[in-house]
């Protein structure tokens, strides 16, 4: 069969993008998709470990988690969430443009996705800077300076008897350990995603894609959507509750 398809004149009607070990574009496309979904499944399990760690320590030190999450800026976190959602939209639109053989639009939407990704990292940088300033660092480096006159009441007014906080609860450094590892690992995924998207953008500019072959755009967008998915869960767990 394989030698037949090598000589099969029909193969020539597809471009050089149809790799020799695939018989048809559909086969190539479906293989690529399956490969990507398997990778995404691994990513889900990868982050699941950290989410379970979050769960365990939350059960053990609930007051530390409440106090720790009150130190995070919901507005910045909320803006970051919207930035990533918009970037998911532009990524889906990039795939759509590639599917519709609109090369310029594809580049535009990929560019927009990259810009959103950078915005996310910039906002994250400011968030981290605020944490460093206040000494809210993980583990042994936790030396908070946010104590005086801070109230949790305006955020979670129903916390019984805690109108004014004069000291963060013990084990709050555990919350920040988990915060930095989770958001840091997610941030690394965003950075890698930027690299991948830039590569796909360059390939698109080079004219690698056409109406029959836009698989890499689809695959890269799938990775990017997963980065968004992780943040959709990170945001409420770390910032809101």
């Amino acid at each position, binding site marked *: 069969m394989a030698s037949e398809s090598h000589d099969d004149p*029909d193969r020539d009607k*597809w471009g050089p993008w149809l790799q020799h070990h695939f*018989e*048809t*574009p*559909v*086969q190539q*496309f*479906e293989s690529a*998709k*399956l490969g990507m*979904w398997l990778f*995404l*499944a*691994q990513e*889900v*399990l990868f982050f*699941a*470990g950290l*989410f*379970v760690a979050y*769960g*365990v320590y939350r*059960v*053990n030190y*609930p*007051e530390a988690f*409440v106090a720790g999450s009150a130190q995070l800026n*919901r507005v910045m976190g*909320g803006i970051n*969430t*919207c930035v990533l*959602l918009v970037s*998911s*939209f532009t*990524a*889906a*639109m990039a795939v*759509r443009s590639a599917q*519709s053989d609109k090369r310029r639009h594809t580049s535009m939407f990929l560019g927009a996705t990259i810009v959103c990704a950078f915005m996310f990292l910039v906002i994250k940088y400011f968030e981290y800077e605020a944490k460093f300033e206040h000494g809210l660092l993980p583990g042994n480096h936790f030396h908070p300076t946010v104590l005086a006159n801070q109230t949790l009441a305006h*955020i*979670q*007014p*129903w*916390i*019984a008897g805690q109108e004014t906080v004069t000291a963060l609860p013990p084990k709050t450094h555990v919350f920040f350990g988990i915060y930095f590892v989770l958001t840091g690992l997610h941030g690394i995924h965003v950075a890698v995603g930027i690299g991948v998207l830039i590569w796909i953008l360059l390939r698109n500019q080079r004219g690698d894609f056409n109406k*029959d*072959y836009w698989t890499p755009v689809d695959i890269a*967008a*799938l990775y990017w*959507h997963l980065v*968004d*998915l992780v943040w*959709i*869960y990170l*945001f*409420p767990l770390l*910032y*809101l*509750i």
Partner: protein
Amino acid sequence: MADHSDHDIPDDGGVHVHVHSPKFYGGILSALLFLTCLTVASSYVDIDGLVALGRPVEGVGAWNLGVAILIATTKASLVVLFFMHLKEDKRFNALVFVGAILFAGVFFALTLGDTATRGLTGDRYNGVTIDPDTGLRAPGGVPGPIVGEVLEEGLAVAPPDGAALFTAICGACHTIGGGVLVGPDLAGVTSRRTEAWLLSFISSSQTMIASGDETAVALFEQFNRTPMPDVAYSEAQIRAVLAHIETVGGSATAAPGGEAVEDIVDAILGDDTEEPVDEPPADTFIEDILNDGEEPVVVEELAPPEPTPDPVR
């Protein structure tokens, strides 16, 4: 990948997909942004309080958590089904992804099922370190006392290890002969203070300070009002720590030679009459605290303030 909707799909081996309109994707984005606003807004509302008729809840309750996760899952579903096209994709890809989520769920459920229910069983051996039947420490277990352990009377346990007890808690802030750390250098402390005072101060320094004990208050002021946390050691354990301090730190620096040795002997043997061991006279009090084995510091006494005249009636 082909979708079996409106038009005929040419069977030429090429990839044919249903291309959604920009409006469609825009609609999904709008829904996602709306749900984001919803989840942020709901985090400011005490849903547990509403549900449980205003009962005050410590920390964040289950309903807020539940609503947050529900909204997050809705958003995630929208992204997965429509942005990632899983709805139109081959069933096997969906199986792979959903399978991963299910396994993550098992991981989560079983781990938290353990963590959240620790100590809740009626198993008489659950969480014990002393065998309830024989009163002996669990076989193959800890060689010395467990820090902070409250021992019941009559249980057969090893005598407290003063060095280990010191390292476990005291060593964080005190040295013995190594200078001031966070709290004072404890070398010779058993000659400076009575055993009763030390037992009380170590157990709860803040209680002593609150009750107005002069020495305790002066120490508190001297060390920048850094509170010494209450030490949950039994009397026997504290005595073991003090004995360890004497072994390592030797005699006090205030009195030279034989007098100091006598003081130590008195301290070790314990004083039945609870007589204070050579309490320093009041006017060298501050200097003694400041000394701690280093260059003697002399504190000049301030001239007493002018007596205020009686108010004119």
